[in-house]
Each structure stands twice: as structure tokens, then as C-alpha cells.
């Protein structure tokens, strides 16, 4: 339902077409670019905080035995590393990219609900300050794992209500962001831009936003019930009171599995923008890409049981979840095939966004394959709770989601700032990241297959060598990430002027490339006509 802009909507108050100055610009920001920038900066800060926790984990696991931190603190680090990376780094980064790019890609002047946009961002710093401040309360941070399984999570100390409130705030922020994306795309597309003409990044976000609206309230409901179990003597999940702890797992993973796709589908969209640009060919099977994303989103709702095979469930349920999970490989295979076919016989060039996109393609596929192994019920009984699972989901989330975000930032950064960044440094960032992410996570497959359990600060001596390799990879990967903000800051300050096309000699299709670099404060003064 493409709705043309009325001329009134597209008009601007020319004399006000400037950002406010000072702190007010950011506190009261309603401009999609300003809010997008704040989301991206926030997520980068959270990426380094979550990364620091990962460094503590890898430092402790460098050698067997307990040397640096006590086991409770180690568990606090694993729990909060996950919460911060998922809700603080990856999700806000994609919302930031959505804020920056969706209005520019669909030819809208701004997001449809700018004040709500401001509110949904400004909730986040409070949510994460609350979460991080639990480090200072008696009993420390939550340590029962990011999955918050009862009864373990109910033993959390004074930080428990703070954690639950922080999760509620993160959820509210995500839901508001998702509502904004949907109403913007459905109502503010430029005349002539029907849904099938819409860029793949906007498409992937439209589907992701529906996923968010469906599952974030489910997580909020589950943690509300945990809260009432903890403080108001209800027994939703307390077996002693007639409750069912396994029910929490069902509800959690009804949220948790689509959450994985919430973190990956926008990356699919970004990769689908970058590969055609640097292959100098249109995206192969663009319509099938949209159907594939929609199929993956649908299937993500019916596979949650594969996280719970080892809990025990009827064989029929095991078979259903196993087969439904394997079915996801079909639309994912369509996407990987289409990306490969897009590059086939293209005039490829290897700028940093393309390098990250190609690494995404290979390394995300490794995560996908190990996911298929985990989907096999009898095999899962062996892999469950081992480092194989850790290796699997880190391959999906680091070279998957995070490389997707980095590819997107390197792709659009010259458009945002009007300057080209330091290509040599960015290539260094890529090669160090791509090499050391494998040194970090690939050995974890071997550790898991050899039986090393996850979420432990100590391990048997036979796991020493691969843990050392993994930790060295972790430290090197962490150090390499320092290049990322350096390159960004350098690019904001100056550099070679970027043209409106940015990537000369390519033929990208989105409307953002019709705007100058950097784009005006409000993207389109008159609604563009899409032929």
C-alpha cells in the first residue's frame, strides 16, 4: 500500500531546517539521523563493555584452575556479557541503522513517530545503567545465565528486580522502535515505491519489526511472572508451589528463537544491499529473497523446542522441532545461493563493506551448518551444554550479526559523514577481525565435541591447548576492534570528499544514493518519484 506524500507533508519549514545546538540537539532529538547516530554510538559503547566482560571470561579460561576471578563473578560475566551484547549492542545497532537508512531508502523526510523515536532511544541508557549498576548491589549481578531459567534465576540477590526492570525497559524500547519502523514503511514511502520495489534492508527490517512486536511482550510477560514468583509468592514456575519451571523455558524460547532472527534478518538485508553494489550486478532473485526472509521469520516461531531437547519431550514433539528446524535451511539456502549467484561473473571489487559481506557469507554459513547438527535430536543430547553450542551461536552472532553491522557502517559511513574513511585501516580491521574471530571460535567446536561444558570457570586439563588458542584469538579480536571507533572518528573529522554515489563505478539502487553526502538534515524536501 504505497501512499504518496501529499505536498504538504513533504514541505519543510525552511527557516527551521537546522538542528538545534548543544546538548538540546541530542536530548530532544526528533530527527531520524540524530537518533540513529545516538543508537549507533550507544551500541558501540555497549559493544566494548560487553567485550570487556568477554575478555575477563577468556582470561579466566586461558588456563585450567581458578586464577583471576571467583566462580560467582565468572557467572555474572557470562550472564551480563550476553544480555549486554544482545540487548545493548546488536539490537540498538540495527535500530540505529534503521533510523538512519529507512527514511532515506523509502524517500521519507523522517520516521513517522519522531517523539516516540526519541523516547525509545532515551530509555536505553537508563535501562543499561540500571543493569550495570547491579554490579554494586549486595550479591552482585545476575549470574544464572541470560536465559533466566528458574529456579536458579530466582536465587539472584538484590539485583533481581533491577534486572527485571531493565529487561522491561529494553523490551519497551524495542517495541516502540518496531512500531515506528512499521508505520513509517507502511505510510511514508515515496510515490511509486511499492513494497516489491523497496530495498532489501527496509524489507528485512519490516519483517524484523513484526517479529519484535510478537515476541518482546512474551519475554516481558515471562519476566513479570518471575518477578511475582520472587516477591508475591505466586508459583508460575515454582515446582514446590505446583508451578512448572519447564514452562518458563517454553515461553522464554518462544521469545528466544525469533530473537536470534531479530538479530540476523537486518544483517541479511544489509548483505543484500552490499553484494550487488560491489558485484556491479542486480541482486539475483530479489523477490525470492523477500519470500525467504518471510519464511525464515514464520519458521522461527515454531522451532523453539530445539533448545529444550535434553529437557525431555515426547518423540513426536522432538521429530516436529527437529524437522521444522531443518526446514529453515531451505530459505536460508535460497539466500546463500542468491548471494553467491549475485557475485557470479560480477565485476567484483573488495572494499571493506564487501570484505565484511563475503566473510559474513562464509562464516555465517559455518554457524548455520553447526545449527543443523544441533537440530538433530540424538546428536543434540551429546552437544547440549557444551562449548559446541557456544561456538555455534557465536558464529551466527559475531561474523553473522556483528560483521553485518560493520559491513553496513562501512557501506553507509561516507554517505552519513560526507567523507571517505581510511580504506587501509578499515581493511586491517577486516583482516584482523576475520582471522581472529576464527582463532577465537573455531577451536570451541573441538572443545565442545571433546565434552567441555559451557558456563564454567575451570576445566579438565585436556582442554587446555584449545582454550589457550581461543583466548589468544579473543584478545586479538578484542584489540582489533579498537580500530573501528578510530576509523569512524577520523572519518567524521575529515577526509576525502564523498560523492552522492559514494562508491564510484557501482550502480546501487536505493534512494539514499540520490541524496548528497552528507544528506540534508531532513532527507527529502520533496517526495521523490520512483519510476
Amino acid at each position: 500500500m504505497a501512499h504518496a506524500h501529499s505536498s504538504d507533508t513533504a514541505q519543510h519549514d525552511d527557516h527551521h531546517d537546522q538542528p538545534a545546538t548543544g546538548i538540546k540537539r541530542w536530548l530532544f532529538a526528533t530527527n531520524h539521523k540524530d537518533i540513529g547516530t545516538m543508537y549507533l554510538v550507544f551500541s558501540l559503547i555497549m559493544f566494548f563493555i560487553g567485550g570487556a566482560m568477554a575478555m575477563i571470561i577468556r582470561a579466566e579460561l586461558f588456563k585450567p584452575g581458578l586464577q583471576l576471578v571467583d566462580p560467582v563473578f565468572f557467572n555474572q560475566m557470562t550472564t551480563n556479557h550476553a544480555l549486554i551484547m544482545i540487548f545493548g549492542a546488536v539490537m540498538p545497532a540495527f535500530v540505529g541503522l534503521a533510523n538512519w537508512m529507512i527514511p532515506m531508502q523509502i524517500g521519507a523526510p523522517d520516521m513517522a513517530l519522531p517523539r516516540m523515536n526519541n523516547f525509545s532511544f532515551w530509555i536505553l541508557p537508563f535501562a543499561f545503567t540500571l543493569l550495570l549498576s547491579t554490579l554494586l548491589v549486595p550479591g552482585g549481578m545476575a549470574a544464572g545465565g541470560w536465559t533466566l531459567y528458574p529456579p536458579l534465576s530466582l536465587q539472584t540477590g538484590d539485583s533481581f528486580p533491577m534486572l527485571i526492570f531493565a529487561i522491561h525497559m529494553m523490551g519497551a524500547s524495542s517495541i516502540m522502535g518496531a512500531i515506528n519502523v512499521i508505520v513509517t514503511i507502511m505510510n511514508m514511502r515515496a510515490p511509486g515505491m511499492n513494497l516489491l520495489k523497496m530495498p532489501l534492508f527496509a524489507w528485512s527490517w519490516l519483517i524484523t519489526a513484526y517479529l519484535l512486536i510478537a515476541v518482546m511482550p512474551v519475554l516481558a510477560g515471562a519476566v513479570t511472572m518471575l518477578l511475582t514468583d520472587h516477591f508475591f509468592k505466586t508459583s508460575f514456575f515454582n515446582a514446590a508451589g505446583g508451578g512448572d519451571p519447564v514452562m518458563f523455558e517454553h515461553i522464554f524460547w518462544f521469545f528466544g528463537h525469533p530473537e536470534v532472527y531479530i538479530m540476523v534478518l537486518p544483517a541479511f538485508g544489509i548483505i543484500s544491499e552490499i553484494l550487488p553494489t560491489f558485484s556491479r550486478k542486480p541482486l539475483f532473485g530479489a523477490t525470492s529473497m523477500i519470500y525467504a526472509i518471510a519464511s525464515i521469520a514464520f519458521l522461527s516461531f515454531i522451532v523453539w523446542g530445539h533448545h529444550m531437547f535434553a529437557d525431555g519431550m515426547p518423540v513426536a514433539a522432538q521429530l516436529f522441532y527437529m524437522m521444522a528446524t531443518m526446514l529453515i535451511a531451505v530459505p536460508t539456502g535460497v539466500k546463500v545461493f542468491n548471494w553467491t549467484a549475485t557475485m557470479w561473473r560480477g565485476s567484483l571489487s573488495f572494499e571493506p563493506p564487501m570484505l565484511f559481506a563475503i566473510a559474513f557469507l562464509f562464516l555465517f554459513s559455518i554457524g548455520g551448518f553447526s545449527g543443523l547438527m544441533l537440530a538433530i535430536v540424538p546428536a543434540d543430547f551429546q552437544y547440549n551444554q557444551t562449548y559446541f553450542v557456544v561456538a555455534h551461536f557465536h558464529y551466527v552472532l559475531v561474523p553473522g550479526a556483528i560483521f553485518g553491522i560493520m559491513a553496513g557502517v562501512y557501506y553507509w559511513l561516507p554517505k552519513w559523514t560526507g567523507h571517505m574513511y581510511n580504506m587501509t585501516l578499515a581493511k586491517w580491521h577486516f583482516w584482523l577481525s576475520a582471522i581472529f574471530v576464527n582463532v577465537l571460535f573455531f577451536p570451541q567446536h573441538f572443545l565442545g565435541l571433546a565434552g567441555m561444558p559451557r558456563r564454567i570457570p575451570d576445566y579438565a586439563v585436556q582442554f587446555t591447548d584449545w582454550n589457550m588458542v581461543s583466548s589468544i584469538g579473543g584478545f586479538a579480536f578484542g584489540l582489533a576492534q579498537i580500530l573501528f571507533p578510530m576509523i569512524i572518528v577520523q572519518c567524521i573529522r575529515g577526509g576525502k570528499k564523498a560523492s552522492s554515489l559514494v562508491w564510484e563505478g557501482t550502480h546501487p539502487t536505493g534512494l539514499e544514493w540520490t541524496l548528497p553526502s552528507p544528506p540534508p538534515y531532513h532527507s527529502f524536501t520533496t517526495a521523490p518519484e520512483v519510476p
Partner: protein
Amino acid sequence: MNAQTSQIRDALMKRRVRKGALGLAMLALAFYFGFIALLVLHSRH
């Protein structure tokens, strides 16, 4: 659209955006309370 506040001025679009946003917010609330209600029913059996 006002550049300082980014507010949409077109009344028709404003109504459509508001209706869409309210509908989606209701959907989210339905999921939230719906799952809690399901669990309350489950815990009674």
C-alpha cells in the same frame, strides 16, 4: 513536516500513522497479557 519537531502535518497521514501505531501497540499488549493469562490458566490445572 516541521523540521524542528519532525511532526507530520498532513492530517490524513497523521491519522493513519496514529491508527497504525495504536493497533500495533494493542497487539503487543495482547501478547503480553495473553501469555500471562495462559500461564494463569495453566497453573490452575
